[in-house]
């Protein structure tokens, strides 16, 4: 008999309305290969948290089925959910039986294993957070290079799965039209339905303190909404 994969959950957000279409149930899984300097969830970096069997997790998600309507469902996020691809795939079997669809909110920064491919193919939508615009900056700000992300996006596009791309705009790192042009060059290759910019915020700063981790952006101001609006409008005219 096959042993069940445990999934390690950091937290649940039962109304993660913005992580996909319709009302989303957010499952935040622990473990992440990246160490983004602007990460607002450093408490999800290492695998820890409450262990769930795929059945237990699917049953918990099922409690929210009444709210999903035609469009809603569960979104696996993290951390990096695709580190738990095998567990997600087992969970997905139960979800399928319950008539619940899932989306993945990922950095795409994982090797394209069979498990990852299965996770992607089974998803109704991929939300990919493209962190930086080239290998150099990716390495500098996340600790890894960008090759996995590009392979991942290519696989998503080839599989015909719906794709949204997002980027967090951090003041002083990527908050200019010139840099956005670099992102747009990459992103346009994958033809996403939507390219959404998110403003860097400081609401996760307290977590660094709690964890005793040095916060690389300590003292950095959140992105103001006017700049975010201006940059988003710029992207909208370009894509």
């Amino acid at each position, binding site marked *: 008999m096959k042993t069940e994969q445990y999934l390690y959950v950091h*937290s649940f*957000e*039962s109304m*993660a*309305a*913005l992580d996909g279409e*319709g*009302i989303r149930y957010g499952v935040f899984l622990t473990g992440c290969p990246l160490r983004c300097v602007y990460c607002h969830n450093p408490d999800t970096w290492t695998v820890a948290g409450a262990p769930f069997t795929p059945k237990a997790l699917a049953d918990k998600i099922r409690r*929210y089925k*009444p709210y999903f309507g035609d469009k809603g469902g569960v979104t696996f996020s993290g951390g990096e959910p695709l580190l738990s691809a095998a567990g997600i795939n087992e969970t997905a079997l139960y979800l399928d039986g319950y008539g619940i669809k899932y989306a993945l909110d990922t950095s795409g920064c994982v090797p394209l294993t069979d498990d990852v491919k299965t996770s992607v193919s089974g998803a109704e939508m991929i939300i990919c957070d493209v962190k930086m615009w080239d290998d150099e900056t990716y390495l500098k700000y996340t600790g890894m290079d960008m090759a996995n992300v590009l392979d991942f996006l290519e696989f998503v596009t080839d599989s015909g799965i719906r794709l949204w791309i997002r980027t967090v705009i951090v003041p002083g790192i990527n908050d200019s039209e010139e840099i956005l042009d670099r992102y747009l060059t990459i992103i346009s290759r994958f033809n996403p339905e939507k390219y959404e910019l998110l403003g860097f915020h400081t609401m996760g700063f307290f977590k660094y303190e709690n964890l005793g981790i040095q916060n690389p952006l300590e003292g950095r101001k959140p992105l103001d909404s006017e700049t975010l609006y201006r940059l988003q409008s710029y992207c909208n005219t370009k894509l």
Partner: protein
Amino acid sequence: MRSEWRDFADGVWQTEINVSNFIKKNYREYGGDSSFLEGPTDRTKRVNGIVNDLLIKENENGGVLDIDTEHVSSLLSYRPGFVSGEDIIKGLQTEKPLCRAVNPFAGFRNAEQACKSYGYEMSVKVREHFDYRTTHNDGVFRAYTDTMKKARHVGLLTGLPDAYGRGRIVGDYRRIALYGMDFLIDEKKKDKTALGELDMSEENIHLMEDVAKQLEFMGQLIQMAKEYGCDITRPASNAYEAVQWLYFGYLGAVKEQNGAANSIGRITTFLDIYIERDFAEGTLTETEAQELIDDLVIKLRLVRHLRTPEYNDLFAGDPTWVTCSEAGVTTEGKSMVTKTSYRMLQTLYNLGSSAEPNITILWSQNLPKPYKEFCAKVSIDTDSIQYENDDVMRRMYGDDYCIACCVSAMQVGKQMQFFGARCNLAKVLLMSLNGGKDEIYGEQIAPEGKVYDEGEPLNYNEVIKSFKSYASWMARLYVNTMNVIHYMHDKYAYERLMMSLHDTNVKRLMAFGISGLSVLTDSLSAIKYAKVIPIKDERGIIVDYKTEGNFPKYGNDDDRVDDIARDVTEFFYNELCKTPAYRNAKHTLSILTITSNVMYGRKTGSTPDGRAAGEPFAPGANPMHGRDCEGALASLNSVAKLSYTCCQDGISNTFSITPETLGTDMDDRVNKLVTMLDGYFVQDAHHLNVNVLNREKLVAAMEDPTLYPSLTIRVSGYAVNFNKLTREKQEEVIDRTFHCKM
């Protein structure tokens, strides 16, 4: 057929009083969207402008614009009053808008104190009127036992209607429009004759006297309307008269008595029938139809009662609960939404958002989608409306019930309620741990029992056993206290006009309430799943707890703790049912606190869940502030598990979410709110107040009230103007969980 009934479909409604039958035979279902709606006329804008100026003055004046200290409020005490020469729907409580009446029938001292606290003196004339008169309050205190007084004093039972009007009775004001008073009087006389054929038991004599009192006030209502130039002895012959006749009934009721909640019932689909007939006859336009509803609502927004500061502490924001219920579906499953259901909502745009009337949507999965979407939009724009689950209430109350006050369902004109405030169950737990002593006063209230030891962790099985034994004692005392109150209320402050608009053989509900459910639940969960060690003071009373370890908290869709909430509620309801209620009333139970959750908290010592002494409770059935940490839907799911079957007087849940969390733009937010409401109610949840706003906006309004003068917010079964709350209550509202995304 009578000319006023021309073109109406025949039915049994023509030979007996049966408004429900009339509605179902005649209403026209509307499944379209809101695009037909009209804005306010210039006249409406002018009149509304006058009213808004008065509201500002009222606020500047400390909350009361004026008091008429010369008259005792009743149907014929005052000459006709008007807002302006342009009133369409006529009638004010006193001679001037927002001038409050003095109504001492429920309690003389209360009325006197209320006058004084706003710098007025009751006139000698009014005093003399009550010199030789027993009020409801006098009667109650003659019969209260020492234990009842103690339970009331320490705050085990609070907010009892023993010094103010009980309210929550809804006359079927539609009957006046449909039948005219002559017909209604004839029917009452026939009822009285029939009662006269029965043996003269105490019960029957009581009812005969009730009917005689009703008849007297039916006559006075005719006279009151006549002074405004209207003949309500006959049925209404068009839409204008239907609105006016119905409003006269309501107006007479609020002149006669000053009960806490004066709800108007379920009127929009009824009125729509008259509007549609006028449309067909070419005598009314959409603009005029909207103007009629707008003008009715202006009048309803002007309803006021004179209250004491202590009363305002219980029910903050000067509410009158002119609850207006609408929508729902028939028992055959057909939507009861009409264009006038939309017109009522439209008043929030035409006149601006407002706490009153308390518009209550009877939500069914089967309501038309465009109507659901319009409701959601109104919620997002105004935070002024609430939702209650028609699909669960219809099973128990049929399809012609309305909501009184916040969440109390009753069949219109067929059921009445004996309102019973609530019992503080969190405090009962503390009392049970102290062997029947109050944790604040140290007095022995209940029979002596085991006092738990200091330093020893509490054992759940033992605690639940002693809690249940004290809850059972409490339940009996509670029912008996209510019996005294309502006996005296019937005797000294009987609602003659309202009850005349009910069937003579009315069915009675006695509505009990629980406060502190989430505190009690989390405390029991702490005792069960963590280690709770009592700490005593020098009197030997347990006044605090050391709680070690984690425990599941109500509000996270966790059955381990949600089941506790469900079980204690069911247990307490069953215990209440063991003591017979006055006039054979049926026991019902609500989990609703109005805004008194702040006051209940103030009167309750530290609790094992970690809540410090004096801290506010969560409102109604809400999870405690900040403890629902798995997001909005988990919180909703926990509340949805409470059983309406044992809480047929309502389970109140107040929900605040930021616009950004709900969705990216209006369309998205509307769709998600509709999906959320459907998802909550399909699980048989009962009630939801919806606020879509940011905490920052409330903080700003608290600091500078002029920023948002009409900021309306749903609190607990009703809405208030945020600026009318005290600082303490504003802070409590701001502390509540706002579901938002990080």
